[in-house]
């Protein structure tokens, strides 16, 4: 029987004391108590009580690396879908090339997949992204899949432990965007196994002993593969 971590539902009482409500939690002004606002796993961190959500959208924060898809092209900027409730703008000033006015589509076209960084989120929720940093680029080849953004930390693992496990066993290039999009590149069968592993992690993110189970699964499949 797989052990799962405790899961709370919206409206469930979390704490009555001095602690402060963090992500996925709120304080009811009527009685001063803290309740969950999300379906997720409660976690006390310093003097905050959080609920790590099991589901939900991606909310961008500055400096996060995400995988975006170009959805529109204008003379001096592109609109990028970063899997957030708001569209993101990539301005010609924020790309590594010198782009003349009106020449934007020569560099990036609609449907292109890019690795970008969230620069800032304005007061009117407009997301600005950038491709200036050295490691940022347009992806070519490989495969892109989407997982729930809330599961990204689990797929990466503590100090990258989980994803390094997958990369090592299957010899696949994997880049995980904070927004739940993942780019993989490797030999066909290995890539498919990597995707299977990631989907399994996504599904069991709220359980215990997951790293060991995935390691076992990778061992089994690696030897079958050889």
């Amino acid at each position: 029987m797989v052990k799962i971590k405790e899961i709370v539902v919206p409206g469930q009482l979390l704490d009555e004391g001095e602690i402060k409500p963090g992500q996925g939690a709120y304080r009811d002004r009527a009685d001063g108590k803290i309740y969950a606002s999300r379906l997720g796993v409660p976690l006390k961190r310093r003097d905050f009580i959080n609920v790590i959500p099991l589901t939900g959208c991606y909310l961008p924060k500055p400096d996060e690396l995400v995988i975006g898809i170009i959805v529109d092209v204008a003379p001096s900027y592109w609109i990028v879908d970063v899997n957030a409730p708001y569209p993101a703008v990539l301005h010609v000033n924020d790309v590594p090339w010198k782009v003349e006015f009106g020449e934007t589509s020569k560099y990036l076209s609609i449907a292109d997949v890019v690795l970008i960084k969230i620069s800032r989120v304005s007061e009117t929720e407009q997301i600005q992204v950038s491709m200036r940093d050295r490691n940022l680029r347009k992806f070519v080849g490989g495969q892109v899949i989407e997982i729930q953004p809330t599961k990204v930390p689990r797929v990466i693992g503590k100090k990258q432990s989980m994803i390094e496990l997958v990369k090592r066993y299957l010899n696949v290039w994997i880049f995980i965007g904070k927004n739940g999009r993942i780019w993989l590149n490797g030999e066909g069968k290995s890539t498919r196994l990597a995707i299977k592993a990631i989907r399994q992690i996504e599904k069991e993110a709220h359980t215990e002993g997951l790293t060991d189970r995935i390691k076992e699964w990778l061992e089994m499949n690696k030897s079958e593969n050889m």
Partner: protein
Amino acid sequence: MEKIKLIDEKGKRIDGRGAKDLRPIKIKVHPLNRADGSCYIEWGTNKIIASVYGPKEAQPKHLQDPLRAIVRCNYDMASFSVDERKRPGPDRRSSEISKVIGEALENAVLTNLFPRTMIEVNIEVLEADAGTRCTGLTAAGIALADAGIPMRDIPAACAGGKVDGKIVVDLRKEEDQAGDADLPIAILPRTKEILLMQMDGDLSEKEFYELLDLLADACINISEMQKKALLDRYKQEEDVEEDKETKGKKTENKEIKKEEE
């Protein structure tokens, strides 16, 4: 035409229920693939599915609220959901129901966390048997939690009325049509705040408060079923998500049985 006797001498209703008993309820969480959150409920003969998309960009732009998300609800009845075929598409009744359900849900959702966005809730009635707006709202509450939309609590809804002079909870079609009052409500279970309330018929002040009390209890019961259904989804070991359901049958002891398939 002979009037049907809706409650017999022993106080039993035509389907054998007592005044406070709910019809059998089955809940399936996340039955759909494309929607961000979804829930299918069978409540008596009602078969209703709710889906949530969002938060997403509010379109057209003029609908955007700079301070909060807007909650838009589309309640629709399938043409084959009722005895006499209903022309597909919205009518005045479904527009009104969409509005009151949307307003109830908006109260529960922490809309200030997603300014300028829209949360789209779709409720489709596949088969109707009285209490569709309450079933729809109950399903929508689960779908919102499934989609990860932050809420103060998950709204639960139930309707009741007066039948053969007696106050009863959870009207079925015959009771709704031949009864003397129909009162659907939705509450936020933790605080018992009333988020939706409509009424038509004839109730004395005493009857009204008695019914309201019973309905609040019923909603609390339903709320437990909603929460259990959400938690059950994450308890399964294998990928049998399609067949996993949570059954709830109301008795006065609030015994809820979980059936595994």
